[in-house]
């Protein structure tokens, strides 16, 4: 056996093979994690050197109404996104899992928004939502709503951000569900229909339980995505009107690269990392990515 193991090991790379990737990742992704935590304990204007300021930023963060509002808005946006995107993506995904030709063609169309960058899409929607020259203005006229102050009202702006996010990301989640739905064993449906279950009951009794894992994956990705939303807010609303769409990443940008209070912005960023990491760890737990090791490796 010993000889065989040696033969097995000869072709194996050492862990050193991972070093270039590790270094690279360490420098531009892991080191920044450490640095941002360090910077959150400094006062830094971006011109002179960061100066240690102890826990000042953190105590300020704790009682900063702007941060509280941003956190509230971020959570609200996350909730809105989930409530809107999940049902639409689920239905769309299950529907497009059918193998009819028409469905395949339509799926390809649904998929289009995913191709463009957030910037491009935000620009399109900004033009559409323009109160005077956009489609919103025409629609408001037709429906005699008076005006199209979507981006100018507190609720409208947040809803607009949530909607544009949905428009952009529903196709992605629908794809996840499509993949999931196609793996549901056919026999389960057959059994259900023998029991006399109609479409709706089949959906709830068979499809949904079978898609449990997909729902978890999709939800967690959605939550992390919504927590780190930035481009659309920047272009669509600029965090406004007032602070109505100043969510945490935007607050960080504004504090960091407009007010150049980079130490405090780092504290905001660090809290974002903490939340996102927490959610992602949850993701790893719930979906079992960590247990994905192949049995062949014998680990």
């Amino acid at each position: 056996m010993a000889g065989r193991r040696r033969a097995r090991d000869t072709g194996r790379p050492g862990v050193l093979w991972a070093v270039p990737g590790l270094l690279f990742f360490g420098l531009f992704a892991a080191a920044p994690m450490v640095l941002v935590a360090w910077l959150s304990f400094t006062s830094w204007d971006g011109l002179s050197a960061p100066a240690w300021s102890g826990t000042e930023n953190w105590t300020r963060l704790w009682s900063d109404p702007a941060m509280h509002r941003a956190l509230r808005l971020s959570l609200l946006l996350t909730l809105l996104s989930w409530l809107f995107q999940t049902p639409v993506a689920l239905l769309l995904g299950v529907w497009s899992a059918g193998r009819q030709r028409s469905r395949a063609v339509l799926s390809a169309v649904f998929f289009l928004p995913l191709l463009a960058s957030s910037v491009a899409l935000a620009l399109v929607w900004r033009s559409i939502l323009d109160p005077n020259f956009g489609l919103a203005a025409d629609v408001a006229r037709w429906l005699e709503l008076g005006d199209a102050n979507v981006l100018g009202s507190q609720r409208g702006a947040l809803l607009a951000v949530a909607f544009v996010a949905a428009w952009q990301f529903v196709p992605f989640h629908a794809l996840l569900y499509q993949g999931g739905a196609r793996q549901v064993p056919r026999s389960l449906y057959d059994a259900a229909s023998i029991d006399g279950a109609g479409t709706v009951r089949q959906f709830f009794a068979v499809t949904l339980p079978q898609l449990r894992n997909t729902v978890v994956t999709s939800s967690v990705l959605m939550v992390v995505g919504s927590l780190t939303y930035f481009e659309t807010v920047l272009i669509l609303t600029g965090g406004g009107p007032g602070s109505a769409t100043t969510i945490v990443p935007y607050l960080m940008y504004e504090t960091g690269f407009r007010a150049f209070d980079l130490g405090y912005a780092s504290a905001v960023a660090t809290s974002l990392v903490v939340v996102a990491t927490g959610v992602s760890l949850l993701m790893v737990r719930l979906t079992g990515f960590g247990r994905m090791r192949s049995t062949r490796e014998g680990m």
Partner: protein
Amino acid sequence: MPFDLHPRLRTPATALAGAALLAGTLAACGSGGPSRAQTLEVWTYQDASTHIQAEAVERFNETSDVQLELVEIPGANYQERMRTAMGTPNAPDIFFNWGSGSISDFVQQDMLVDLTDTLAETEELRDAFVPTVLAAAEIDGGVYGVPMRGVQPVILFHNTELFEQIGAEPPTTWEEMEELIEVFQAEDITPVALGGADAWTSLMWLEYLLDRTGGAGVWQRIESGESEAWGDPAVVSSAQTALDLIEDGAFGSTFLSNAYTNDGVSTYFAQGRAAMHLMGSWEYGGQLANAEEFARERLGYGTFPVISDGAGEASSIVGNPNNYWSVNAELEGEQLDAALEFLKHTTDDAYLSALVANGDIPGTVGVDDRLDDHPDPEFARFQYELITEAAAFTQSWDQALPNRAATEMMNAVDDLFSGGLTAEEFADTLRGVS
């Protein structure tokens, strides 16, 4: 690959990071940072007037060994991008700014060339500029910028056709203003166009209201660091007046989603859908470019109305005294000489003619002789008188304050106009900001 750590920061973490990079992870990638080359980077805000700076750079390059490269930065966030770049070794060498708060952080860090001696010793620049215009570039006893565009007072523009239609004159008092708001609303015309999605346009109203209510002194106290002056009753009362305007529908119902930076508001105004528009003098040039007929035939202009029991002067104005070229203190030797040489050209005949022809009023003395070359000499004379006879010229608040204070203030203004703060809360929020 040149690899010199910026002297201001040699933290172990970044040194380690740098070492890791050097270790060859990626030696092939990236061209490396540019060291200060023979070419100087000149940054300017990109808009309809940028061609004047481009031509100046071109003229300069023909005669100089040290070449200039104009970098045009478009969009509403020039200030942030310039400030971000200034924190890096790739900072611009000469750059457009608004003086005062837009550069005061740099002055504190000794990052800009003090131009006091240059201005005193150079024939082309000595006594060339109107002192009130130069004032915004004077920080802590030094001069850190040279005026390079037009003086930009904020003007109450109006649509003459709409005023004829209702048989009224532009407002000179606040009472007339309030009356007009009612009349235009009855006519289904938005009384005042406002691009509230860009908070600095809302700010212009506060600037004028505070000036008319409390006099120019209130702002001067705030600007000089007396942040308690935000508690002045005039601040609350002018914020309340702004809220009343909103309440009365003066700005229409969609002003918070209207933006100025995409010309949305200007187009709306030019289409005859709003009667008045409070905006910097550059609005004229913009309209001339985008809606020429409107600009030539229906675009009227006037001063901001007087508030009868207010302490302000009727002739006081707010706006940008000018834009300025500042020079990075990293420059030395031949390059510094070239940069200073370039500054001289802001007063030469070709440059001033181009400014005037573009519709600008340069901040140099003796400019009245040139006003006939302005595309609209009448408008030019109006502005010139406005500037020269102003009892006070208040600089736009967001440019007067340093970045951090300006951001806090702009957020409060945005919150005020979008209904998130009452007038009292507005003043309270700003106490401590300066």
